[in-house]
């Protein structure tokens, strides 16, 4: 796991790798862009509320892309919206992460054939780190997705961006 497994030498000193320290800091405060699209957004909001409490993982909605670390694509992405999402993504500072939540964002979902206006998967526009299946996924599934993302951040290297 990292930090606290290392020994405490003196009273106030923790010894750790720089990589571990940075990764631990990053994964413990994933600020998500306050952004919702469709019914998945309702589940995402439920995840943020006290019952599921996204905040205990350090996830806080941040209403500006300039200070957000992650974006959860929660819902159906129309072609018109896709151009906007791309812009939001480009405005986020590195390192940035993307969780694709629900069937619509993953692959078009129920609109895969006759949805003339739907982008069939957000990964056609921006690179996705974690896909959360479901229609819509339960808050537990989104939490699982977030923990997968944290797992990914934990193994990141300074020299090469993995996630």
């Amino acid at each position, binding site marked *: 796991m990292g930090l606290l497994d290392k020994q405490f030498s003196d009273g106030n000193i923790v010894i750790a790798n720089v990589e571990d320290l940075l990764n631990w800091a990053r994964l413990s405060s994933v600020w998500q862009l306050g952004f919702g699209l469709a019914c998945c957004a309702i589940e995402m909001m439920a995840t943020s509320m006290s019952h599921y409490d996204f905040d205990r993982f350090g996830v806080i909605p941040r209403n500006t892309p300039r200070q957000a670390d992650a974006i959860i694509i929660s819902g159906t992405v129309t*072609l018109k919206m896709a151009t906007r999402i791309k812009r939001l993504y480009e405005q986020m500072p590195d390192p940035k992460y993307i969780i694709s939540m629900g069937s619509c964002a993953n692959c078009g979902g129920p609109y895969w054939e006759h949805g*003339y206006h739907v982008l069939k998967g957000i990964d*056609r526009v921006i690179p996705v780190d974690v896909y959360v299946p479901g229609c819509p996924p339960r808050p537990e599934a989104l939490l699982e997705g977030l923990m997968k993302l944290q797992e990914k951040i934990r193994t990141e290297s300074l020299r090469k961006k993995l996630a």
Partner: protein
Amino acid sequence: MTAEEIFNLLKEKFTDSILGFDKDTPTEPIISVDPLQIHIVSKFLRDEENLKFDSLMCLSGVDDANGEKIKHEDGSEFIKGGTLSVYYNLHSVSLKHKVTLKVSTPREEPKVESVENIWKTADWHEREAFDLLGIVFLNHPDLRRILMPYDWNDFTEEISRYPLRKDYKNPEFYQGMKVPY
């Protein structure tokens, strides 16, 4: 007033602008009106003392797909001729009666007079019918697309412009994004 009484009243007043009356529909009787006279008829329906249709409940565009179907070599179909229609569902809040109007307009040049200055509801509804079916509403103050992107016209194939037409064909790409699955 029943739909039949309203039809007789309109027929008496406007004669040639009222094209027909269909009462054997599964839902409600429908009065057909000339698309270039609909604003005059509508104004009468709203202002007449014993009609008072003060509410346009809905305005919907429909592709009747009653033209000649022409098959392309790649299997896709193309409809030539026939009509597009607009339905108006009216309700009088004070007199508690309803009526449905219909106008049909040729598919190749669909033009209907706007009723936006009679019922404000019609503004966005007409924009929607224009956006998805390409029905042009004459004298509408702001006839722009309302749902689809503004540049949805920029495809080489004309058939890809109006998505709710029955012979609509999805474009391959929109702004570099692949559209089909």
